[in-house]
């Protein structure tokens, strides 16, 4: 990584993604069944935040954004209003925390955020868990298998 000014610029970019995600979530909350397709937009924004946060070693932001990304994916196929509401509630928690952390980078992990992460993980499990992922080694194997 380079200068603090550059890091600040990167954080501002991530904050822009968080603002878009907030608008989307507000729209879903106002019309849960009609706007649930917008969960995919929210997921994309969380994905963008996660990827860049990982690259910037902002691990806690990456972790929470990753959970938000997966819960939003579940939201796109949620069958009932109560499931959608559950997703929306969890995503507000995730987004609020991501936004806070973007404004307070470098702050130590606290118990409250640990509890939030556990709660998000629990919600995700209740929806069937995250999509299966592969490690770098597994990707190497898949590439080799291609021949």
């Amino acid at each position: 990584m380079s200068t603090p000014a550059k890091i600040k610029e990167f954080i501002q970019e991530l904050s822009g993604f968080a603002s878009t995600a907030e608008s989307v979530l507000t729209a879903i909350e106002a019309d849960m069944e009609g706007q649930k397709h917008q969960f995919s937009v929210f997921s994309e924004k969380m994905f963008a935040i996660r990827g860049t946060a990982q690259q910037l070693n902002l691990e806690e932001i990456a972790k929470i954004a990753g959970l938000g990304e997966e819960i939003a994916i579940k939201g796109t196929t949620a069958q009932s209003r109560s499931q959608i509401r559950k997703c929306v509630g969890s995503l507000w928690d995730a987004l609020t925390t991501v936004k806070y952390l973007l404004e307070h980078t470098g702050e130590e992990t606290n118990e409250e955020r640990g509890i939030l992460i556990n709660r998000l993980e629990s919600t995700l499990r209740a929806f069937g868990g995250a999509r299966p992922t592969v490690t770098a080694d597994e990707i190497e194997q898949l590439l080799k298998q291609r021949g």
Partner: protein
Amino acid sequence: MSLHDESNILVVDDVNSMRTQIKALLIGFGFRNVDTVANGEEAKAALTSKAYHLVLADWHMEPTNGMELLKFVRAEPSLKPIAFLMITAESTKERVIEAIKSGVDDYLVKPLTRAQIETKVYTILLKKRTPA
């Protein structure tokens, strides 16, 4: 001419921070010709106006994502030989397999280290330079 001089590289990512970082790394390795664009649509325009040897692309972008760009490159005879490295936080198995089946040369999952990018970029470019 050295690999650094002869290789035209295109970095495609909608996140400015990532473009900046990847370009800085490539310049740091010694590559002289590194261009950046913000999405697959801009990449298509760049690829049809200049001869590139390597594309490093993110997956999720609009308009035209990294997968659509990969398929475009592989379907176009004049672009098909270009090396394509997907650099993304997308690590779901289904997506990785889709990229491999679509002809990606290599696939890197974020967070990336300098060493990972260095190894992948040189390996791909050298392999393309010396066809089997």
